[in-house]
């Protein structure tokens, strides 16, 4: 997703500049931050899944650790980031190919609402299981 260019662009630092930012700009920033978080999580997840190759004791001990509240909170952040990034990705894919470009602001609001609803659903489910 490309953000409208400013006259004196400072690259990545511009992401954190709230001045003159519209809804789409915030959508861009959250998309990028969620992308970075999900990328870090992806490679950590792959390393942790390596426990599967070490056998049942190593993997099941890891799963027991993963049920601690702090880890569960981290997983909830991953779910929120995944929902937002995925749904916003659909919006970007659609508008990139000229579909519903006129409604991109309404679509972004729908993305945020669906992310909030989905996150709440999974948070309740995680709390009820653990």
């Amino acid at each position, binding site marked *: 997703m490309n953000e409208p260019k400013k006259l004196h662009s400072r*690259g990545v630092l511009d992401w954190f500049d709230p001045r003159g930012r519209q809804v789409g700009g915030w959508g861009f920033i959250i998309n990028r931050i969620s992308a970075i978080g999900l990328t870090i999580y992806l490679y950590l997840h792959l390393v942790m899944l390596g426990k599967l190759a070490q*056998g049942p004791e190593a993997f099941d001990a890891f799963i027991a650790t993963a049920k601690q509240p702090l880890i569960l909170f981290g997983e909830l952040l991953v779910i929120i980031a995944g929902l937002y990034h995925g749904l916003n990705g659909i919006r970007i*894919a659609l508008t990139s190919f000229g579909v519903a470009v006129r409604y991109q602001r309404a679509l972004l609001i729908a993305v945020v609402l669906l992310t909030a609803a989905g996150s709440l659903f999974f948070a309740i489910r995680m709390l009820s299981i653990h």
Partner: protein
Amino acid sequence: MQNAPLSAPKPGEGALLWTLKIFSGVLILLILILHFLVNHYWAPNGLLSHAEVVAYYQNYPIVPFMEGFFLIFVVVHSLLGVRSIALDLRPAPRVLRGLDVLLLAIGLIASGYGIWLLIRVTGWGG
């Protein structure tokens, strides 16, 4: 908000990589829904045990293939995303070439490791 398309290839990105990023993202979403439902929603405790993962892979041979493609799509999409963010910093051509080599190496190692892991788990106890 403007009425122009939101996303387009950046200088240094190219139409092919941009299209690959968009399509891999859509494919990830489709497989992610299935991955998430099976591994975290239908699993009795929210997470599968080692025995459950092995049984799941061995009883449904399509699953390791699905997970393998999922891994490759995710790795490609994430590394193209990192490259896209790096382009925001307007790196020198030499730095960008070095980054390309690094990202390619990370992608190959991560994909190779993940596929090895899938084969190892699928053949567990055999």
